[in-house]
């Protein structure tokens, strides 16, 4: 391919039909026009940034976002269905590596492993993910959705697009989880798509409770690709231990986070430099690079019956 590029015929592709002699001189008129275009475009960019920078008052760019989502949402879902062969391929490569390692030890089991390899199916994986989703949060009404777009690391955003929107009951500030644990929350929803802020983003903070001691703290993202999180306890004297598990402690009226969703496990604890307290590094249960089927908590939990405990009834039972 590279060699082809160097050949005269392929080079002609770069020549843009040789309009070079026509414009190479750069007469004052064209230079002026060129600069005008640049200045106009840069001014337009600054206008946009200033208009959109104040999010609190409702940005005037939001209608544009809605329109873009309504056009590109269906396109993205179509394009991401091209993902299926890719995913199969990726699974297949992973399986191959495993097979090679096993081969050295157990050559006889090779055929059986090949059979396993062929039955690894995308659809089956998805069904298994849905099953685990149902087991994780049985109390909530969930809307399943698929990830159709992932933000890139260049833009420092840890966000994904899912293919469920307001038409499916998804609104901003809803909890998103999958079979492993907490994924993030919905920051923006349009007709057919929604944008999810992952917990690994630097803009994300989740209230987390230590499973072992019920101590409260805050989990914030570090912006790393692996999704590593920082955890700080509210009580400065308490110290988390390595291996402690962290779950959400929930927000009022379940928005943006419902209680009891597993977040991750503490992998190391360091004392804060020059201050009280300690910061724990948390490895999330959800691998942010491999999320596919997620669930959005769209309904309240079935309210647990709370009957009053009366002294007479307990006495009656006791005697």
């Amino acid at each position, binding site marked *: 391919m*590279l060699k082809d590029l160097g050949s005269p015929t392929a080079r*002609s592709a770069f020549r843009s039909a040789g309009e070079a002699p026509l414009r190479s001189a750069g007469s004052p008129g064209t230079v002026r026009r060129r600069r005008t*275009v640049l200045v106009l475009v840069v001014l337009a*960019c600054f206008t946009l940034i200033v208009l959109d920078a104040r999010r609190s008052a409702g940005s005037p760019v939001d209608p544009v976002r809605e329109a873009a989502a309504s056009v590109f949402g269906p396109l993205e879902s179509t394009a991401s269905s091209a993902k299926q062969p890719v995913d199969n391929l990726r699974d297949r490569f992973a399986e191959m590596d495993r097979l090679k390692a096993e081969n050295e030890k157990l050559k006889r089991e090779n055929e059986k492993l090949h059979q396993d390899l062929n039955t690894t199916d995308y659809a089956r994986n998805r069904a298994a993910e849905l099953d685990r989703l149902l087991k994780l949060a049985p109390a909530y009404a969930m809307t399943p959705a698929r990830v159709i777009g992932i933000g890139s690391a260049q833009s420092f955003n840890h966000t994904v697009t899912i293919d469920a929107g307001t038409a499916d009951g998804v609104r901003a500030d809803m909890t998103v989880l999958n079979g492993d644990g907490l994924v993030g929350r919905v920051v923006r929803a349009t007709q057919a798509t929604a944008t999810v802020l992952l917990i690994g983003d630097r803009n994300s903070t989740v209230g987390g409770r230590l499973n072992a001691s019920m101590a409260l703290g805050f989990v914030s993202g570090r912006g790393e690709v692996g999704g590593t999180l920082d955890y700080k306890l509210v009580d400065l004297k308490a110290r988390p231990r390595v291996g402690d598990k962290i779950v959400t402690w929930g927000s009022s009226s379940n928005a943006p986070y419902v209680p009891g969703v597993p977040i991750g496990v503490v992998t190391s604890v360091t004392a804060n430099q020059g201050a009280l307290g300690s910061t724990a590094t948390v490895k999330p249960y959800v691998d942010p690079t491999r999320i596919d089927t997620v669930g959005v908590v769209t309904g309240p939990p079935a309210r647990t019956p709370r009957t009053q405990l009366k002294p007479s009834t307990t006495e009656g039972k006791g005697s």
Partner: protein
Amino acid sequence: MIALRIGLAALFLMVAVTVQTSVLSNFAVAGVTCDLVLIVVIALALSRGPEWGAITGFTGGLLLDVVPPADHTAGRWALALAIAGYVAGLIRRETSAGPVGPLVVAATVVLGATLSLFIYSATGSLLHDPSVDWGEFGVRLGIAAGYDVVGAIVVIPPVMWVMGRVVAARERRRVLP
């Protein structure tokens, strides 16, 4: 002819945005995906000059800013890609004595990736976006630039070939003896 050219450019940009957000993210290297939109903008700039680079860069960047899953201030990628496209167009003009060789194209892509990522991050810092992490900047830029050159080898020749086909007959007659 002009309408056809603009239509083609718009089509290229739309396809690039869709593919970059939903397909290429599955081939991410350490989270970094190929900047397909940047590559298309550079291809258009190399074939049509700085004005086209600036305008298509603005349009493509604006799409990247508003199409989900983007969640940053709109206008940041637009500014970054507009300037990268303009500079790419200038390079085309500087070397216009001869055809643009593959090495110049690769260098332009690396320069464009550096410029756009720097402008994007700098505007983020100015706006106090906590997600911008300058410690990670170098690594991500390195991976992105390498990945973009690979993508450019596949994308730039066909885009420039198509754009070269739709030159107005009048323009072509004056250029080709």
